[in-house]
């Protein structure tokens, strides 16, 4: 097996000029792109620009290395593991301090190595040979006022060859013992409501046995989703999170179930004296609803930005959570929620609502959501969430 090794190359400002190209200027441009990437605007374009700039920096860096210009040191092959570890444990800090970038203009060397030292200390990696080499190399570059490029030298032969003495039959046994569902579905003809309930129950059973499973909400009727989720949220049972997936394969945050106690009619008495606010689920989906609604809960433009269904679910959840938080300070609300469809947004909304109801469960009731579904030419009332 081959692997990439990392070689650190430090270059003075003069050495950074190759064929009329100033490497430092490329580095500073790339740093600006990094700052823009964090904002997430036109991300794909920014990523493309970043790749082009990094590609040029790496190309000229390799040329300088082949000419043995500047100072260089080869790190051990585990250096990439250190970076992956840091990214896993301190994602935000790593991005902010640019620790996974493969170049460092001289202006940023001091900050870079300072943050690197502090994070590797937190993970007790400071004695690692590569870490030591990098720290010493960066300190020396800092002293000289040089910029650093971290170059991948690919197709180096692995020094840590994996143990090949694997018993294939033993491995196959472990593989076949992996927990995966071996049951088949009961084929009785059932309503969509019962079928989805069955599917959820099956996932709960498999999850309790440690088998990886998730409920797929794609292409399901949105009224079925809301009604069945209501049953699972308000039933008694051991509170748990239901794994959620979509047909595009994306995995959303799990959905809390068995976690809200239904309020008594008595407890809801005061709140129910208030008028119902007609709220459409999402703008620009059914313009004929516009005149009927007081307001829309989601702006279509804000929700339809995710690329995968799970991302859309996540955006809808965050937006709804934000709005519920704001509503806490604005008094009590009786919402008539007119659903317009779009499954990930429906699931995201009810996830946020369920969490909100859990949070408010010890307070007097201040929120009630009644879903309305457009079925057979008129609106039908769903089960009340409060």
């Amino acid at each position, binding site marked *: 097996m081959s692997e990439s090794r990392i070689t650190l190359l430090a270059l003075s400002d003069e050495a950074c000029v190759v064929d009329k190209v100033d490497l430092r200027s490329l580095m500073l441009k790339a740093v600006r792109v990094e700052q823009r990437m964090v904002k997430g605007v036109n991300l794909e374009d920014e990523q493309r620009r970043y790749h082009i700039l990094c590609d040029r920096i790496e190309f000229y860096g390799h040329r300088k290395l082949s000419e043995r210009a500047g100072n260089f040191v080869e790190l051990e092959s585990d250096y990439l593991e250190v970076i992956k570890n840091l990214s896993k444990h301190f994602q935000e800090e790593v991005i902010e301090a640019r620790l996974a970038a493969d170049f460092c203009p001289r202006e940023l060397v001091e900050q870079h190595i300072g943050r690197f030292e502090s994070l590797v200390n937190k993970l007790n990696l400071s004695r690692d040979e590569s870490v030591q080499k990098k720290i010493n190399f960066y300190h020396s570059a800092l002293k000289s006022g040089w910029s650093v490029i971290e170059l991948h030298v690919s197709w180096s032969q692995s020094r840590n060859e994996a143990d090949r003495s694997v018993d294939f039959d033993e491995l196959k046994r472990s593989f076949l013992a992996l927990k995966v569902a071996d049951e088949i579905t009961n084929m009785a003809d059932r309503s969509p409501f019962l079928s989805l309930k069955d599917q959820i129950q099956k996932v709960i059973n498999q999850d309790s046995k440690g088998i990886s499973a998730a409920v797929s909400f794609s292409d399901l009727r949105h009224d079925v989703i809301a009604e069945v989720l209501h049953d699972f949220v308000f039933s008694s049972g051991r509170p748990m999170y239901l794994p959620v997936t979509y047909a595009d*394969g994306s995995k959303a945050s799990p959905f809390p179930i068995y976690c809200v106690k239904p309020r008594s009619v008595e407890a809801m008495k005061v709140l129910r004296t208030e008028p119902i606010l007609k709220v459409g689920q999402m703008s620009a989906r059914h313009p004929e609803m516009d005149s009927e609604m007081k307001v829309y809960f989601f702006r279509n433009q804000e929700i339809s930005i995710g690329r995968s269904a799970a991302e859309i679910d996540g955006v809808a959840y965050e937006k709804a959570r934000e709005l519920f938080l704001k509503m806490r300070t604005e008094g009590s609300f009786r919402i008539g929620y007119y659903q317009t469809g779009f499954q990930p947004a429906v699931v995201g909304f009810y996830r946020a609502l369920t969490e909100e109801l859990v949070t408010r469960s010890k307070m007097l009731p201040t929120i009630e959501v009644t879903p309305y579904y457009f079925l057979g030419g008129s609106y039908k009332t769903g089960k009340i969430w409060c």
Partner: protein
Amino acid sequence: MITQEYILKEIDRFAEAVMKYDSEYRRKNKLPKNHELRPYRWCSRDIVFSLLVVKHERYGNYLYVDVCLIANPSQYYENSGARVAMGFLLSEAYKCGTTMEIVFGKNIEPRLENGQLKPRVPAYICDLAIELEVSLKHVFEGHISPFEARQMYMGLAGFSKTTQEKIMKLSVGGKLTPERVCFLVMGGLWSLPEAEALILGSAHPEDVLMSASDPALRHVYLDDLLAARGAVLGGVLDRKLLKKELVVNGQIVESEDEENEIAFDFDEELYAKIYKFGERLEVPWVGGKKVELSPDINLAVLVRSRTSSEILESADSDLEHLGMLAGKYKGSVVGVLYPRDWEEIQQTDRGLSLKREIEAVGAHLMMSPESVAGLDKEAMRRLETGRMVRHE
């Protein structure tokens, strides 16, 4: 027992599904949703392998097969129709986000039981399961369970034993699911030899296959990109060698089924591709030289998708590996494959001396028409596409 009457009836049902599809979707220029019945006809030229009508049963989250007719044409290898059908059914089940359970509808090879018609898993698929050493437990209920589907998918993808071993290790370690690897290959994102090069030749194949790295984390992303770039360059050579050009009336024509007979192997230690040929061929991209290959002569190629500056920097290491490759595969034609970026240095002193050193080892310098920029573009496309594919 499949009767002529059954086959004709199922062909009629398939034709009905096609007509419905035409009127509801094709003529309206609409695409059906996963949960709507869709007909598929799997053919090569005028030979039909399988007729299928499927849908994602959304409330039960399994793949429902309404029509399943399979042929086993004698001109092709055993169980070819069932291979085509199952390859598609499993990939479709994965794509639709199902649990991977496949359910055959009530009209499929039905039998009378207690006065009721009951379906079964088609006999050809059972034959295929026997060939793949997978035991199907629910044949007469017409179901293939997720556990059985996993084993059949692994068998159908056709990985070498070493690659299967690595996939199993990664699965046992919880790093990726075998279904995803199989889908990436059977869905055409990576060819089988490319996937094997990735799995055996890179330090973290799971990161590449899961498209796990964020392009903003350059070190991590570049590591995956380099692995993907190498596999793509190897794939370019695979396709060049496989491509058969038939001369008809003095003109070169290509045919979808006609490929050169080649067996692929991969040397994971040196990251080299080993080709064994069933016919006489010439080594491509050796600068106009005529280097012949035959069933007695293998081709061993060190694949190095480097930029010109990387070639210069890693020349010593590549020469060392080339020497090792020549020693390991004595009697084979040995080469090192670089991208077109080689052109940038071929006339320099170091370029000329490097070429002499390569020849001194008894190897050939092969220059692909693809440049690193083109390879990177393709590798990035594949990583990006993989990001949108189901992850479990």
